[in-house]
Each structure stands twice: as C-alpha cells, then as structure tokens.
C-alpha cells in the first residue's frame, strides 16, 4: 500500500514537473520565429552592415584636410584619430570598431538565415534566400578583410592576417575566434559569390535596391576580382552589370543633375530609382553631417585640389560638373561639401533632432563598375576599350564634352604634364604605358566618389604615399607599406586573444 502511495507520489511529482515545463514554455515577450521563406527573407534585411566606413576611410585618405578651427567646425575625436592614422580610442559612430561590429552583426544575421535554411526539409523553397545570405555574408567579410587586413597579395596572402571568418551562429558568450589568412577569406568569398550568383532571384525582393540582386552581386564580384587582380573576371562580371549602354546607367550629372538644387540632389543621390545606384544601404553614422562640419574633412584646399583650376594653366582640372555643385554651409569656406549624402536622425519619439544619426548611401554604383572594367582593360592593355569606357563616363560629367572632343591618351597625358601622378606599387607590375590610364582612372574615381570613402581602398591597393596637412603644424605622411594602412582590430578582439596588427 505504502509502495503504491510512494509510486503515486513520485508519478505525481513528475507530471507536475513536466506540466510545469509546458507552463514555462510560454514566451516572455513578443519575439518572432524563423518559420517560413518570408521570415528568412525578413531576417536577411538585417544581413547588411548598418554602419559605414565613409567616416574613417574618407578621412584617412587624401580627400581630407585639416580645416583648423571655426565657429561651426566640429571636433570629433574619432574623426581626428582617423586623420592622424591613429588607433581609435572608442567604439562610437564612425570608428573602425563600430563598422567591424556592424559587419559581424550582418554576418550573424546571414548565418542564422543559413542555419534556419539548413534545418528545413523544403530547402528548394529557400534557394533565393540562401543566395542572398551567401552574398551578404561574403560582402561583410570582404569589407572587413580589406580594412583590417593587408591588401590581397598572392605572394603573401596565405600568411597575411585577415579577420575571423564566421559561418556558424554564436551560442556562447565568449567564443574563441582566430584570424583567418587573407587568402582563406578571399577563397571563401569567391566560393560564396559564385554560389550566390546561381541562386539569387531579383523577384524575391520587395525593395531590391537594398539587397543583393543579381546586379549588385556582379558589381560586388567586379570589385572583388579587381582587388584580387583577376582582370578577365572583372570584365566578365562588369559586363553583366553594364550591359550594352553603360552611360544610360550613370548619374546624369551633365543633364538632369545640373538643374538640381541641393535638396533635390541629396534626394536623387540615394534614391532607389536612380539607375546608377546598384545597391543602397542605411547605416548609423555621423558622416552625413560630419562630412560638412568635421574638422578633418573636405577642406577648402582639397576642394581646390579636386575641383579647382590648374594653378599654372588656369584651366579647370578634370572639368568635373560635380565640382560645380560644391555648397558652402553657413556661408563658411570651411564647410564646403557636395550634397550627396544627407544626415538623418532615427528618432525615438517623433522628435526629429534627438535620436540615432544615420544616412543612406550607395554601396555599389554603375560608375564604380565602369571604372573597374576600364582598369581591367588597362591592365590587359586593351586601351581602346579603356577609352570607350571613359567616353561613356565623361559624356555624363564634362560640360564641354562632345563627340568631336573625345578623350584620348594625349589628353590624359596632358593632365600629368606638370605634376606626376602618385608612385603606384600594387602587388602586380604596372608598365609605363598603363600608368597614365591608371592615374587618370584613379583621379576620376577620387572625384567621383568624394565623401564616399572609396578613395582609401585605392590608396591602399596601389600602395602610394599620401600626406595630410596640419593646421599650424607641419604635414604628416603615410608612406608606402606603412603598417598604419592596416587598421588595428578592435581592442576587445585583441582582449579575447586575436593577434593585433603590427604597429
């Protein structure tokens, strides 16, 4: 009798415990679950870095100058750190750490999407999502390795420190990570791009311009192979993006854009409808307004250098229409900028001047793909094609451009008559004949993407020296092969045992 009673009691206890477990299964709040292709697609909206490199790469490049002090010139320590090529002491907006975190957050979202896809039985319904996840994950790793590692060099890539390549969701508080080599990262990215290209479907997106469409993926591939130095692949992928009439997909600076007032230009520059914008992203940054007010940004002398007249010939150098759109905030010469990227505030409660600063910016544009292809042609010594691409471009940029006044080698060389271009030292050899094309392309890119942070990657991959002026001081320079070209990894990453970059 007693035995039965005991068994009954134990049984009762067990059922109570298990019913308690059911009772405690209730979710504590309104969290969602990954249970359909739509849900995975929604998660992949988060698979893009919500931050920008612009705020430090542009400042580290030779597009920035020291404005000194003025009533509206703002000091922002990360801005100063970047200009002086110092390791940033904080992780606030526009620091390398902030961008690092955003990239890995995007990677985590992609990995969770891939993980969810791996677990479903109807994988065939998730192919487009898988493609996007692979593309997004590759992109974030690509940006990381190019900022925090040395530029790809086939001779040393196997031993050069890259960044951790993350492909599994993190499940513990502190997981051990190791920096993979630059080569490993490049190999993984290449594999992911190639697979993603087979899977991505443009019709799976509600707002395609914020996702890896086929076009965006090929634009990414074009940049990837350019950095890797695989010229045929650059041309192959660029061709897909550019189609037969590249100039129709470029920003119409020479037409429509000429008529725009600042606010219209701002609006058009980051609209999804703008054909030139292949992929857009929104991220947290102070750069929208910082590009105007920060002490270390496009200073007056830099505006002169990029868009001004040649001091000797008194001719407009490069004659870029873009330069006509320089705007001065508060009427101050110190606050010149081109209204491309507008600072926004993500307000918490309808109060538009408190909240998280952010902006929308294009991550891939037709212009870049065109430049990539032209550069690849130059490296393949197909100069006719280079000039053809330049022609497509310049007709949208130069006011006086007409079919009788096309660009040619002679004209390009004339630009470097008085002052040479920089000493180029990429991982591959540059012949004398290629030099002028590359210089010219670099100079066009520098102007085209002013404020957009891409100049730094050119400085890095061509490994040329740059200098920064110092207000009331002597200039500082960043020589070729300087260790500071490789941004230091975050101190928290060093703290968990990742190898720091040499300094």
């Amino acid at each position: 009798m007693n035995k039965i009673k005991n068994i009954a009691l134990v049984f009762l206890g067990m059922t109570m415990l298990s019913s308690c477990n059911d009772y405690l299964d209730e979710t504590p709040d309104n969290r969602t679950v990954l249970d359909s292709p739509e849900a995975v697609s929604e998660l992949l909206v988060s698979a893009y870095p919500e931050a920008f490199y612009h705020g430090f790469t542009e400042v580290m490049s030779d597009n920035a100058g020291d404005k000194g002090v003025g009533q509206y010139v703002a000091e922002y320590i990360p801005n100063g750190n970047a200009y002086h090529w110092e390791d940033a002491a904080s992780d606030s907006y526009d620091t390398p750490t902030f961008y690092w975190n955003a990239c890995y957050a995007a990677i985590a979202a992609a990995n969770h999407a891939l993980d969810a896809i791996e677990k479903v039985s109807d994988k065939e319904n998730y192919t487009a999502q898988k493609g996007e996840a692979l593309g997004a994950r590759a992109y974030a790793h690509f940006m990381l390795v190019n900022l925090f590692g040395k530029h790809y060099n086939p001779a040393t890539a196997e031993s050069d420190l890259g960044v951790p390549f993350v492909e599994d969701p993190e499940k513990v508080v502190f997981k051990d990570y190791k920096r993979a080599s630059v080569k490993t990262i490049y190999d993984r990215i290449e594999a992911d791009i190639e697979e993603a290209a087979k899977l991505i479907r443009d019709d799976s997106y509600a707002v395609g311009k914020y996702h890896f469409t086929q076009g965006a993926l090929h634009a990414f591939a074009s940049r990837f192979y350019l950095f890797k130095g695989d010229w045929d692949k650059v041309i192959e992928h660029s061709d897909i993006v550019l189609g037969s009439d590249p100039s129709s997909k470029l920003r119409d600076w020479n037409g429509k854009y000429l008529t725009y007032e600042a606010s219209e230009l701002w609006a058009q520059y980051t609209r999804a409808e703008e054909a030139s914008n292949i992929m857009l992203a929104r991220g947290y940054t102070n750069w929208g307004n910082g590009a105007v007010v920060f002490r270390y940004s496009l200073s007056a002398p830099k505006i002169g250098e990029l868009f001004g007249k040649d001091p000797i010939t008194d001719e407009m150098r490069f004659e870029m229409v873009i330069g006509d759109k320089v705007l001065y905030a508060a009427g101050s010469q110190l606050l010149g900028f081109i209204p491309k990227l507008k600072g926004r505030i993500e307000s918490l409660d309808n109060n538009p001047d408190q909240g998280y600063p952010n902006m929308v910016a294009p991550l891939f544009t037709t212009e870049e793909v065109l430049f990539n292809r032209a550069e690849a042609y130059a490296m393949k010594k197909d100069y006719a094609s280079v000039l053809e691409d330049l022609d497509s471009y310049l007709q949208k940029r130069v006011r006086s451009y007409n079919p009788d006044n096309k660009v040619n080698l002679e004209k390009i060389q004339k630009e470097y008559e008085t002052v040479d271009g920089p000493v180029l030292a990429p991982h591959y050899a540059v012949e004398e004949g290629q030099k002028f094309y590359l210089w010219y392309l670099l100079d066009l890119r520098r102007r085209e993407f002013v404020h957009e942070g891409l100049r730094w990657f050119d400085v890095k991959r061509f490994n040329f020296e740059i200098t920064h002026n110092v207000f009331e001081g002597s200039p500082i320079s960043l020589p070729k092969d300087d260790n500071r070209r490789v941004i230091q990894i975050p101190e928290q990453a060093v703290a968990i045992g990742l190898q720091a970059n040499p300094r």
Partner: protein
Amino acid sequence: MKMLAVFLFVSVLSASANTLAQDAKVTLNMEGAELEQVLWEIHEQTGLVFLYSSSDVKDVNELSVDAKEETVKSVLNRCLKDSDLEYEFKSKAVTLRKTSKPAYSPAKTQQQQKKQISGVVLDDMGVSLPGVSVLEKGTTNGVSTDFDGKFTIEIPDNGKVVLVFSFIGMESQEVLVKGQKDLKITLLSDSEQLAEVVVVSDGFRKTDRRLFTGSATTVKAADAKVAGITDVGQMLEGKAAGVSVQTVSGTFGAAPKIRVRGASSIYGDQKPLWVVDGVVLEDVVDISPDDLSSGDASTLISSAVAGLNSDDIENFQILKDASATALYGARAMNGVIVITTKRGKKGATSVSYSGEYTMRMKPSYSNYNIMNSREQMSVYRELEAKGWLNHAEISRQKNGGIYKKMYDLINTYDPETGFGLQNTPEARAKFLQKYEMTNTDWFDELFTNNITQSHSVSLTGGNEKSNFYFSTSYYGDKGWSIADKVDRYTVNANASVKLNDKLKVGFITAGSFRQQKAPGTVSRTEDPINGQYSRDFDINPFSYALNTSRVLRPYDDNGNMEFYRMNYADFNIINEMKNNYLDIDMLDLKLQANIDYELLKGLDLNFVGSIRYVKSTQEHKILENSNMASAYRAADTYEIAKNNKFLFKDLEVPNSLPQVVLPKGGFYNRSDNSLLNYYFRGTANWNKIFDETHIVNVMGGMEVKSSNRQNSSFDGVGYQWERGGVPYIDPNFVRHQLQNGVSYYGMQEYRDRFAAFFATGSYSYAGKYTVNGTFRYDGSNQLGQSSSARWLPTWNVSGSWNAHDEDFLRDSEVISHLSFRATYGLTASMGAATNSTLVLKNDVTDRPYISEQESRMYIDGLENSELTWEKQYETNVGMDLGLFRNRINLSMDAYQRKGFDLIAYIKTSGIGGEFWKFANYADMESKGIEFTLTTHNVKSDDFKWNTNITFAYNKNEITKLKSFQNIYNLVKDVGGPLEGYNVRSLFSIRYKGLNDEGLPTFINENGETTVSDLDFQSNDIDHLKYEGSIDPKVTGGFGNNFTYKNWKLNVFMTYQFGNKVRLRPQFKAKYSDLDAMPKEFYDRWMLKGDEDVTDIPAILSQRQYNVNYTKAYNAYNLSTARVADGSFVRMKEISLAYKVPKNLLNKIGISNATLKLQGSNLFLLHSDKKLNGQDPEFMGSGGVAMPVPKQYTFSVKLGF
C-alpha cells in the same frame, strides 16, 4: 523576554461545566510529566482554562500524578507543593503565578477593613484581555483577569490604593482607586517593545521569534506612519536598519528607490520584493533603477504599493538575509518586505476614523541661489555686450524672452501709433528697465498651499468563529503645483471564518482607484556624445521655476498672460499648464482566498490563491492652444519654416518648403498598461513537540504564478479639443511619422510564468538551540525556451542560540535577553536577460522614402546557452541583546554577500554579431553591518523617553566585470559600474582651472590640458577621478519619543553618509534671455586674471563661441568642480500628539481620540554647502518629478 501562553480553547460544554470549577473531578495517570502537560490534561477533561507564564512553569517537571476522580484543586496542590507557584480559581479560569514571599506582609498582620472592587480590562481595540495581572501596588495582593477580562479584588478600604495592571506586550497602567466600584481599564499596546514581537511572519507562515533564525526587522505600521506621506515605501526611511529609501521624486505614485542591504545586482532589478498578505505584489511596469529618477510619465505608476492605504497596514517585516528570505528562493536576492494588513479581532465591533490634513509649503527662492531679476538683467546686458541677443539673430531663434519681445515691438509698425518701440538706446533701456524690476516669484506663481486631505474609516469585529475587517479611504490632493492633482480611493475587506475545528477560510478583497493629473511631459532623451539629457516641452513646475529667468513675468501690465517664444511659438507657463497635461487613471483590484485545513493534529494544509488586475491609462492631453501644438504650426517666416523641426519635410518633393501637418487641433496621446496576475500556493506544515523539548517543524509546498503585462500606446493627432473632439488628420502627419520611422500606435506584451517547489525543516531543542534548512526549486519562463537554464535550486542553512535560556544567564540582572543567529545560503534573482535561445524581433526599416521601407527581422539577442540566474551566497551573523529588563535593546547583524553570475552588460569582440551582450559575467562582493538600538531612557509614571537608533553600513565592490566602460557612463549623474569599484561609481573629468579666456580646462586621456579635446565616448578612463559611490555607505534614522501624560512628542531624523552627488548642470556655452542663473555666476570669470581666483567659467562672447565649446561646458558640468558630498542629516519629522482624556469623550460616544500635529521633511541639519539648496536626494530631472515638500499635517484619530 517572557512569554505568556494562554490556552484559549473553545471547550465543548461538558458535565463538569455545571459544577464549581475547583470541584471538577479529573482522572490522571502521568509519570515524569511536565506541569504544562498536566495542565493540558486537566484542560482536556474539564475545560478549565489555565493562565500562566510559560517561563514560570517550565521548571516544574518530573511530576508523577496518579489521581482518580480527584478534584482539580487537590491535584494542583500536589503538583505545586514543591514549586514556588500558587494558583487561584476565578470562575472557569485558573491563574498560576510565582509566589512572592515577602519578609514582611502588613496586609496579613493588620486586620484592615476590606472592600471588593471589580472591573474589566480591555485592549485598545476594545477586546477583553484575560490573564492580566492586577496587583495592589506595594503588596502581593493580586489577581488575574478571567476569560472575559473581568476581575474582582479585595483591597483595604482606607481610601488610597493603587492598582497596577500589567500584561505582556501592553503598557502597564496604574489606577488610583478611590470611590469607584466598577473599573474599566484599557491597556495600550506597548510600542516600545518593538524588538519583542513574538512572531515573525515571512508571508508564508508565522514563526515563533525564538525559532526564527534569520535576520528580519519588524516595523509596526503605527511607528512607521508619517502623516501626510502616502507612499508606504517612503515611510520606511530610517525605520529599519539596512533599508535605504531614497525619495527620488515626491510625486504621488513615483516609487522611491528602496534598497535592502545595498545593491545586489549591476544591471538587474534591485527592488525588494513586496509581499502583501502572503502574495507577491507584482509591478505594473518595470522601471529600471536609473529610470526611476527620469521624471518620465511612466514613473507615476512605478510604485507597486501606491494603491495601499497606510491605515490598513498592521506591520512590515523586512526580511534581509538568506534564511529569512529562503522561502522566496530565486526572487529574494534583493530582500523581501512583507506587509501584513489589519485583521478583525474578537470582541465588540468597533469603528475607527482617521483624518489628515496636510499643508505643503511652497518652495522658496531663499533656499535656492537663483539670481533676482536685477542681477539677471545685468547678465543679459553682458550677453548683449558679447554679441548675443542681437536684433537680427534673436528674431530667428526658436526661443526668446524679453529681448525677443523688445525687438518684436521695434519691428511692429502701426500707421497710427508708429513703431511699437522706438529703436533708440533710451527707449530700449526703458523697456528693459520695466522687466528688471519684475522679480517674479515663479514658485509663488506655480505652487499653491493647497491642503491635501485623507480620510480613512475602518470597521472591525469578530467572535470565536469569525472576524472581519473593512476599511475605505480617500486621499485628495488639489495639487502642490497648479499642474497636478490626485484623488485616490481604496477599499479593503477581509474576513475569515472557522467553519469547524479543522477548516478555516478567509477572503480578502482589496482595491484602489486613482485619478491623477500631472504636467504634460514627453520622455527625456539622452545625448551621450555631448553628455547631456534633454526633454522637449518640459513644463515641470519645479524645474521651470528653477530654470526660468525671474525677469520674465506671467502676466503683463494689464493682467493678461504675457507670452514669450518657445519652439517658435507663443509660450506662457500658466497657459501651457492649462493646455498640456497628463491624466492618469489607475484601477487595481485584488481578490484573495486563504484556506487552512488541519489534516491531522499538527499537520496543517494551507492554500492561498489570488487574482489581481491592474489597469492604468495615461492620457497626455495637448490642447490646440498649447505651445506644444502651436509649435507644430509655427511657420510664420521662411526662416522659421526651414528650421522648425516639427514641420514635415516631404522627401519625395526634395525642394519643397517644410509644411505644417497639424493645421488644427492638438494631440491626444494615450498609453495603457495592464497587469493580470494569478497566484496560487499550497503548503503543508507539520509541527510537533516531542517530550516538550524537541520542537520540529517541517513545511513543504509549491507555488505557481503567472503575470501578463500589456503596454500599448497611441498617438492621436489633430484632436480638436474645442470642436467636440473631432479629429482633423492631415495625412501628411502620418507620412511625417513614417518618414521618421515612428509608428503612431504600438503594443507590447510581456508574459511571466513562474513555478516553484520548496521544503523547509527546523529543529529546536527547547527553543534554545535551533537549526533550520530550506531548499527551493524555482522555474521561470523569463530565460527563454531552454529547459536547462530555467530551473534553479536555492538553499540555505541557519541556526540560532538563545543564550539567555542557559542556566548561567537566566537569573542575570543585567542581561535580560541574549541570542545569536547565523545563516549561510544561496539566493537568486532574475537577471535582465532573456536570451537562453535566439531572440528575434520584427520592425520596419527606417528609410527616407516610404516606398522603400520594408518589414525587417533583427537579432535582439544571440543565443546564450550559458545563461542562468543571478546568484548570491550570503553569510549573516546576528545578535539580539536586551539589558536591564530590556530597557536597552540591541539587535545587530553583520553580513557578507558574494554575488556571482550577475548579469553584466559586457562588450565582446563583436565577432559573434553582438557587440554588447547581457551575460552572467560579473561578480560582486558586499559586506555590511547594521544595528537597531532602542533604549528606554526614562520610564516614570508620567514621563517616558525612548530613543531608537538605526544604523546600517554597506559597502560593495564589483570584483569582476568584463566591460569596457566609456567616460560618459561613468561621469553622468547616476554613475556607472566598474570593476574594482562600487556598483554605482561616480567619476569626474579632472577640472584644471580656467584658462586666460575664462574657459574651463580639463585633463584628457593623454594627460594634456585641454578645453574641448575630449571624447565622452572614449574607453580611456584612467585619467578620470573616482569621486565615490552615488549610493550612501551609511544610512539610518534617529528617533526620540517623549511621553508626558497624554502628550507625546516625536522627533525623528534620518541620515546618510558616504555618497556623492552631481550638481545640477547649470553651465552652457551659450545662454538665452530665458535662462535663470544661479548666484554662482557672480563669481564668473570676467577679466583676464580672474582665472586665478574663480572656478566659474566665463560667459562666452559670440565671437568666442564655437560648437566644440558645448562639449567643454558639458564637461565642466561633469567635472570634479561639480560634485558635492551627498551626506545629510534630515529632520524628517517632528510631531506632537495629544490623547484626549476618556472622561471628556465618553459623553459624546467616542471611546478614544488622538490629535496630532506634525511637521515632516522640515530641514536639513547637515548637508554639503556646495549643494546650495539642491536636495541631495532629489535629482531634479524635470518631467513629472517633484521634490518632497516641507509639510505640516494635522491628524485626528477617533475610535467609536
């Protein structure tokens, strides 16, 4: 400590009841029995009731009784013959007491004439008291009262006899007997014997104090009660050692910051658990410690106990250590405060009324060093001279005071009367002069002397089988400021019925309803980059008075409201308060049932079930004429339209001018909170005493809880208050919101599920040595759907030694009580993290064009498979000491707590995708001592003086915290956690004096002296100065009670030491003509060289100003120059009470009446001079937060 045990059993009528009590016959056969057992047997057989003190009888043992149908009298004679006890029969009661053996007994030798006098003794509730000792003073002649509290005593008939009535737990009373025949004596409960409460209730059950091994403090509501203070939590300030109460806002409904033994968690909840009548009181909204002082509207519903009528409370038990809180297991880390409400008592039905009338004093400029209008004007003149407040600029600015007004007048031209004001220096000077003399007293304009009233009526009654208590109360406050108002009604009814010998059921219904009005407020936002908080449209009357220039005036020369400019629109504070306010409703209803069933003798089953529903609505009403609504319509000029942030900039039409999207009406913004809480608990409790010495108690049970919380918000746009409430919605308003990524409505749900199993056992050897052990197993859904993380076992062991029961101390003249306690155990608490599995949430992307927005899912928290509860090992040793017949009582505790697995907000490498993680990565150690000392300094017939001191010292240190803090988190006013420091450590930027331009300079992370080369976000913190903790190390209270006849004077002070506070941020890089400045500005830097003598930075000229100096001035506000000591001694309460003599009252049918006059929160006896009138407890964050006023209360208590 004497214990009186009374057998008060309802005896079934038996045959013996008809016979004379002492002739009742019993049959006994006992060997080696204790007297108590014998008495029990006699009681069982005869129904006789024995009244005795247990300490008197416990020495009478080893009795052998063999009686057959013998009278009780003869049995007792035999049993007591070797003892020093004597007995006396009174009707059906038998009183046993020690024989006094006086050497000389005049009463016996002198044959005096005697007379009989009889009477009845009642307690203050009118219930008869049996067993009260009635002694003729100076003799051994004495009797005890019988079952009905009646007594008859023979006394000498010589005219002057004093009778002494005494009863444990009651104040003794002496009565001069002259001609009276029938006496009616009311004994009052002895509030001095605070430490002698005989039972401790931990909310689960009541435990004999002797067997209680934990650290707990009992505070009787009557002692804690501060008239005029409505929040029950605030009452505990200084009353119990180790409980610190910081009233961060005095506004009704705002929770004070209560800590039991300091902080136990870093980011998690640190609030103690409130338990009312055995059921945990859940918060309606969960407000983090920092947000309590934010002044946001949600703080008004943050106090869990705001719906309790303090008159309903019987007592508080504050459970402090692991043993005391063991039965709350994994929720008890922050201590538990158990509230027991009043119960009906047996006896005549009685009615009592208490009324309070409180007048709060208006704050006065004399307490704050704010410049008067003339001084203020001279600063404006300097601003003007420095290029500010110029004609061109001020007309473009969004805010403006009298200068703006002046230039507006100059700009107006009327063809008939000419310019509103001639633009000549003379005319301007004359205009300004008018304001220079204004000297507006904003406190006087915005505050009132309105009297709050509180009325509470209770009915109680009961008999042998049932009892009831019913009360209802009203609290009404017409508002201390012109912007607030509170009405609260409560009802509380409880009844219990003994259905039979085994079954008892009880029901409690408690409810409250509140309507409150507060100044309209929006949530404050924090700008960590520049290091400041801000709040749009802040109209908090206290902040307004403190921050608004006294040059401004509310009414113009004709008595009409005078408007200034705020947010490009007209603003007048009085108009704004009428047109922009919060209405808060709160309804709180609880139903509770208790069932007690005695399954077997000694084995009780108890069940408690309760359901509670709370609904609260906050309506922010913004009428069309308010500045807040007008600001949305301000587009008078191109300049304004371009800069007014409340206008809609249509991004689809890039070049368009911002448009007004609120053409008509105002706003009706609503936020609803609700809580539905179910609670059930079943316990089995087994008590057994073996051989009279081995006391065993075992209890086991389970508990289930569920709470559903819902919060919804809705922003009603274009509500036309003056057009019958018809909304007028401009579709662009919605676009405006969507463009900003804001939704006009939203809802959040929180579900809390909790289950626990527990068992506890204790063994005591004769109440002398007691050991106790508890085990509990808790489960919660808060950690997510992982069954590994959700369950947690907690345990503790404890013991106590009642040393005064040892032979060597029993007869001590000095030590009347001495016991020691020790505890070791594990407690826990739910951390702030819920991600034991991946947490995904949805939102809508924030992108400029609505057509480009899409639904998004994001990772709110990565899976943390290691997630667990926050835990703590606690060691506590305690001692209770009573000296000189408990004239001096000391209760002391020392403890050490080792917190581990605490949730920390830690930085990771970011590689996993989450840079900041909430994880169990911190450890913390704290230790402290606390004591309560009660002394009865004077104890004469007419005059009594008692002193009560509570003292607590607590120190904590974070021993592990994997976090990289940035500067801002450490220097802001609430401090921040850092390894090796206190949980709330305040750091400062090192101020290095003014430079030769009058700008403040600081040391930055590179050791350089700089003005603005600072980054508040920097992780370099080594150069900061550690100021101290913002939590006080020492807290306590000091009270003195003087009683003279019917008068009672109470003087009570509270104190705290060892903390730092940040001074109000008063310095800015640029000022407007609305700003009020503190008198510190007298000493500001004016000329080169001043930097040697002053630390008050210059007012910048417009030429000097640049955007980076904003940071410099904010850094100054956050520097070593702007820190004060937070220590204070506050005269919390002085009260004088008068008990109206009975003979006056009897005629008008009132049985007792007390009148009391009280001043509370009177003044600070000590505080840092640097505070300049700033209250060290009050943060002054605007919104709905208000300081605690100085107030005077008149209260009446009547009993019928």
